[in-house]
């Protein structure tokens, strides 16, 4: 295989499967049959090394070497040298290969009928409100929430589980929002995916599934990450206290998505600076794990549970009474999906938009600066429809002097998903949704598209960074996360 084809996901996969080190060997630069394959390999390996550092596996367990097919001797010596070095280092901190247990999670054992009952889908009137609302169905009518429910109602379990459409769903909650009977489609899809997954059927993961690999690796007890390097100089975090800042996966996204024009790490950095400025020294876990949202929505309930348990134990141990997140997916997961693991713990989970709005109301945050900008806002599905938070991000933005908020045509409850969810099925439909959404943002005449979800920002910027069938000036707009905007308005970070 050309070294250019070696995705970071493959490398992580090797570590997941117990490798102590990975050697990528490619043709010498200039010798590439495809001209640039090895250049790509170089970039990819660099990126993966950074990920390995954050993960705590260590960059030195990955090695890239240029060895041509004629250099048998070099091949031998490189292998010898690498294995020797690994032997000195010892086995991978993750331990050996984790034998994949047969999923036994209760949810996947639930019968289709029970799932229909629990999600209230038995009440479906087949009125078509969901399907005519679904942004995916409008682009690809072969999938619709109604058809999925109808098939399940007809007892066609196999059809439901093998339907490719099962993985197209964005779980954006628009259908559930509008369903007169409040059928829990998002939950229906989540559980059916787990069921399909336990039958060996999986969806197509974006980025070859590397983000799932990362989550799975974080679900290992042995994992000891090195994830606090982002904390900016002069900023303060604590080990114990009352308020925790749950950072989310930005340290990884920052490495993964540096090529789509998003500086993801800006989000936690800004948030931390804002909190510090308000006199808060938040607890930040040095070995915080992925919240598991994406695993939970892509059928891997086993690993989700592991992550939940590890995070809950760490949160409980820290003794905090409030957890603040900047990521709406963490927010939903901690607040809703962790509830059964948290038990009756007296813990308040807040999204940064709520928390910062409160700080402003209490006079803890003051804006010295002014941002003379027209902004528009992309409601993240998890924050808006899933959790019902529409007002606080708007309140937060408009409390910044000089900011004028112009709403997009489809806003709040009617807002449209950024096109991809849980790193599944990034398709041409996703691109079309993103192009339409960006054009909508552009039509507001706003200078800045503010999001409150790191993933919305990544997805929209990804589309803008690509070749597009439309005029760039009709869709390209500056994006910015809510907490970054606040930090800029407080003169804590420079505006670009």
């Amino acid at each position, binding site marked *: 295989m050309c070294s250019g084809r070696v995705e970071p996901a493959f490398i992580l996969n090797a570590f997941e499967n117990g490798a102590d080190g990975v050697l990528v060997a490619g043709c010498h630069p200039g010798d590439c049959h495809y001209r640039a394959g090895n250049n790509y390999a170089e970039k990819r390996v660099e990126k993966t090394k950074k990920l390995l550092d954050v993960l705590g596996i260590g960059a030195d367990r990955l090695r890239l070497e240029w060895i041509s097919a004629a250099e048998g001797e070099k091949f031998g010596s490189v292998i010898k040298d690498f294995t020797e070095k690994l032997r000195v280092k010892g086995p991978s901190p993750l331990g050996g290969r984790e034998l994949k247990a047969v999923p036994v999670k209760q949810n996947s054992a639930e019968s289709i009928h029970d799932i229909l009952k629990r999600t*209230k889908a038995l*009440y479906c*009137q*087949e*009125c*078509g*409100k*969901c*399907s*005519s*609302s*679904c942004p995916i*169905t*409008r682009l690809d*009518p072969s999938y*619709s929430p*109604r*058809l999925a429910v109808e098939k399940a109602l007809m007892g066609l379990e196999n059809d439901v589980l093998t339907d490719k459409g099962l993985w197209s769903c964005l779980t954006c909650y628009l259908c559930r929002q*509008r*369903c*007169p*009977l*409040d059928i829990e489609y998002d939950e229906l899809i989540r559980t059916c995916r787990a069921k399909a997954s336990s039958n060996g059927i999986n969806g197509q993961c974006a980025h070859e599934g590397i983000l799932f690999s990362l989550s799975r690796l974080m679900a290992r007890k042995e994992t000891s990450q090195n994830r606090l390097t982002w904390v900016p100089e002069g900023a303060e975090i604590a080990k114990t206290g009352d308020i925790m800042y749950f950072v989310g996966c930005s340290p990884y996204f920052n490495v993964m998505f540096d090529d789509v024009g998003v500086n993801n790490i800006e989000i936690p950095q800004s948030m931390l600076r804002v909190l510090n400025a308000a006199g808060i020294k938040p607890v930040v876990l040095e070995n915080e794990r992925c919240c598991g949202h994406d695993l939970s929505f892509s059928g891997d309930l086993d690993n989700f549970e592991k992550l939940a348990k590890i995070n809950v134990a760490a949160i409980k141990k820290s003794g905090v009474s409030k957890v603040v997140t900047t990521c709406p997916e963490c927010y939903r997961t901690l607040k809703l999906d962790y509830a059964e693991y948290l038990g009756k713990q007296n813990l308040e989970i807040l999204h940064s938009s709520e928390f910062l709005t409160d700080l402003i109301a209490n006079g803890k945050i003051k804006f010295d600066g002014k941002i003379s900008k027209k902004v528009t806002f992309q409601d993240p599905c998890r924050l808006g429809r899933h959790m019902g938070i529409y007002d606080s991000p708007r309140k937060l933005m408009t409390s910044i002097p000089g900011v004028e908020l112009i709403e997009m*045509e489809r806003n*709040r*409850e*009617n807002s449209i998903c950024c096109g991809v969810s849980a790193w599944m099925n990034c398709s041409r439909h996703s691109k079309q949704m993103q192009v339409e959404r960006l054009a909508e943002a552009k039509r507001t005449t706003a200078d800045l598209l503010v999001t409150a979800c790191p993933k919305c920002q990544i997805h929209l910027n990804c589309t803008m960074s690509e070749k597009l069938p439309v005029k760039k000036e009709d869709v390209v707009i500056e994006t910015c996360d809510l907490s970054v905007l606040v930090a800029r308005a407080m003169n804590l970070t420079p505006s670009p």
Partner: protein
Amino acid sequence: MTGKQSVLIIGGGIAGIQASLDLAGRGFQVYVLEETPTIGGRMAQLDKTFPTMDCSICILAPKMMECFRHPNVKLLTYSELKEVKGTVGNFQVKIKKKPRYVEETKCTGCGVCAEHCPIEVPNEFDMNLGMRKAIYMPMPQAVPRAMTIDKENCIECKMCSKICQAGAVNYQQEPQTIELNVGAIIIATGFDQYNPSEIVEYGYGKQKNVLTALEFERWVCASGPVGGHLLRPGDGGIPKKIAFVQCVGSRGSKFGAPFCSSVCCMYATKEALIVREHAPDVNVYIFYNELRAFGKGFHEFINRARNEYGVTYIRSRPGEIKEDPKTKSLSIWYDDTLTREIKTLGDVDVVVLCPALLPREGNKKLAGITGVELDSSGFFKVTHPLLAPVDSTVPGIYVCGYCQSPKDIPDSVAQASAAAARAAESLAMVQVTPKGGTK
């Protein structure tokens, strides 16, 4: 007249009117309590009735007048129930009659005062589509035919009292407490229309060309705010496409009501026919969930609409109704569930939402005063749904019309007669049990 020979009827809509006429005809003294300035209720707001296509007010107004002129009926309009004590055969009732600031007996309803009144506010009777003055009659056929001053909006310029030749205006009028002794009570409070602005994807309240069914009734009514001209509410343009959307807030668990309002399939068809009769070139679409045309001649009515009038029926609850910011025309996103096609119906001029019809909010207060029970949906409970469909949970108090369960006009009228008969029966029973027991 003593308690045992008189009946209080709460609500002056078609059910209350029918019950009052039945009882008055049998020689009982009847008091009709109505909270607005006129009797007539919802039926008075309708343009036409199904399935006969009668002009609604034309068949109602004679009954309203009959009620007004009947020697045994006393109308207590613009009034509120304050207190009910006692038991069957002997209820002591306190009613607050709000001041109209116009003497009902003197006012001739000529309306000259309203012509001179400088204050204009939205007319509730026209579902706020049209305007009325601060001194007003809700509709031309109001009964009693007397003006009312809306004190909240009145600026007391005294123009009306200067202009009134009958000397009917009286700013000094005070609220009046009326105490009655009645033997039985009939509750007929009707319904309220669910406000669909909560269902944000339909844009009601934000998109001018999205109306509710009752608004539509006033809109196409010759005596309504636009004289019955079929023009777009947003800009007065001539519509070419009108769509009706059924089950807006009904039959759901999230918004509105879990039950079926039972009349929407039929009235939407009636309204579609009205459109086609007004303007045969307008294309009419009805988005339905299930067609519930269960009454005599009902299904035939729908077939006629479909086959003779060319009304298009589409089985779907639309997902979204979107306004074109420039033209203000609407596009409806829907899934044709019979053909399984995801479609958009574009360039729709007017969308009429058929919202759930809910038991009135005030029923809770009424239940508190009278002691009758409500069911979980807010309808008045009856002691047996099959065998005692008009007996409330308090002996001597009966219920009829929409406030008991969803129903149309003929059923409301029939039930009103039933309630009147049961009330009369209870009073007869009281006569043979001297101590006023319920027996």
